[in-house]
């Protein structure tokens, strides 16, 4: 199908975007890789779009102290070409290869994915696991929301309709952090059925901190606190990994009905993927 008619404005600054959104019937057009497809289906019929693709500076990735700031026009592809240094960059690189295809990654953006909040999207669980912060800017000013409070349900976030998601700030991973990512999907080209992200920091051979995120294992991205607790203070060995996998499946995951799977299968898969992600972290770093 073809999109329903809409008005189009191309913003040149963040102020332009915020001014355009103030009318309550305008939506942001970022990479368009979810929005335009929904408009083609006519499941979305925005009255007006404000295109942010020509706003200077929106595509910047900036390391400030212990955080990395990511702007609204940083495309998925940037994370494949080393835009973020260090272990955080390595984790984002490992994850991004699982998001769609190269021609989608040249357009789609990380912040667009966060704003869209697809239940099986990878970035929302990454930022939830890492405890990132998001900045929202609207006519009423700027506010900061923790990633853990941002996602409310599939396709629902704490962003108000008149707010621009202006940046996400990810904490740099400390020295001694090993990372892993494991995903299950039905075909190479489909969205994830489930996925697990792990970043585990070791000091003197024991886990000093852990961040574990689950994709599509509940009605929103999950920070797997029970699995993290199962690792703390222990060496990252087989028993610890098994305990974390069990905790992730039994305590952290809260799966709902999904096509092609039942609940027991989903919990089982969470355990398997948690083990794989942690195994990858301890063998590949």
């Amino acid at each position, binding site marked *: *199908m073809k999109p329903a008619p809409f008005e189009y404005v191309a913003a040149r600054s963040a102020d332009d975007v915020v001014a355009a959104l103030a009318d309550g019937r305008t939506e942001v057009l970022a990479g368009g890789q979810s929005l335009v*497809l929904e408009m083609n289906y006519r499941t979305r019929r925005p009255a007006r779009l404000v295109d942010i693709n020509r706003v200077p500076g929106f595509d910047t990735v900036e390391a400030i102290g212990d955080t990395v700031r990511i702007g609204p026009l940083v495309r998925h592809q940037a994370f494949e070409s080393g835009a973020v240094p260090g272990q955080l960059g390595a984790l984002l690189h490992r994850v991004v290869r699982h998001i769609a295809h190269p021609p989608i990654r040249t357009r789609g953006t990380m912040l667009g994915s966060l704003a869209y909040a697809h239940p099986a999207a990878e970035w929302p669980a990454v930022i939830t696991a890492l405890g990132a912060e998001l900045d929202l800017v609207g006519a009423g000013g700027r506010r900061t929301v923790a990633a853990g409070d941002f996602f409310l349900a599939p396709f629902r976030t704490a962003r108000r309709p008149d707010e621009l998601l202006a940046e996400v700030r990810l904490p740099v991973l400390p020295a001694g952090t090993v990372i892993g990512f494991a995903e299950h999907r039905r075909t190479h080209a489909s969205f994830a059925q489930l996925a697990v992200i792990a970043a585990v920091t070791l000091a003197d051979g024991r886990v000093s901190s852990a961040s574990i995120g689950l994709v599509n294992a509940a009605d929103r991205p999950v920070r797997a606190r029970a699995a993290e607790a199962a690792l703390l203070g222990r060496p990252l060995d087989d028993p610890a990994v098994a305990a974390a996998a069990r905790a992730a499946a039994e305590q952290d995951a809260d799966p709902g009905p999904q096509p092609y799977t039942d609940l027991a299968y989903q919990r089982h898969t969470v355990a398997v993927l948690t083990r794989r992600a942690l195994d990858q972290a301890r063998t590949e770093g």
Partner: protein
Amino acid sequence: MTALRTTLTVNGRPYDLDVEPRRTLADALREDCGLTGTHLGCEHGVCGACTVLVDGQAVRSCLLFAVQCTDAEIRTVEGLADGAEHPLQTAFSAEHALQCGFCTPGFLMLAVGALEKDPGVVRDAERLRELLTSNLCRCTGYEAIRRAVVAAAGDRPAGED
């Protein structure tokens, strides 16, 4: 809805168009520029039949609006042959990398974009496979397409293994 004056530069040639904002780049190319080499399959980003190059990057032209493309350099399958066939076109023919041809313009533009950016992609089996999973072909299977892209990169003469 009012049309907006938009100039698209396609294969080096300017096209002055009056298009509604809702006109996708794919439809503008096909309906307004008369360049029907770019095909439309799914219109939701999955099949890749509509792949064109915008400023050197392979994109889905069904997920982009024409009004977003003013000032951009757009390249479509019609621009590939420059007097003679493009090496990829020769290789696709030699390797039997098409049957009905519906997916071919998309695969050609996907591959041209990737090879121009980094011909080394053909030497990394995993990366090449990942690249080619971007698009769907319902006829030939992907092996012939893979061989054609490798041949066109100059690593091996077309038609030989």
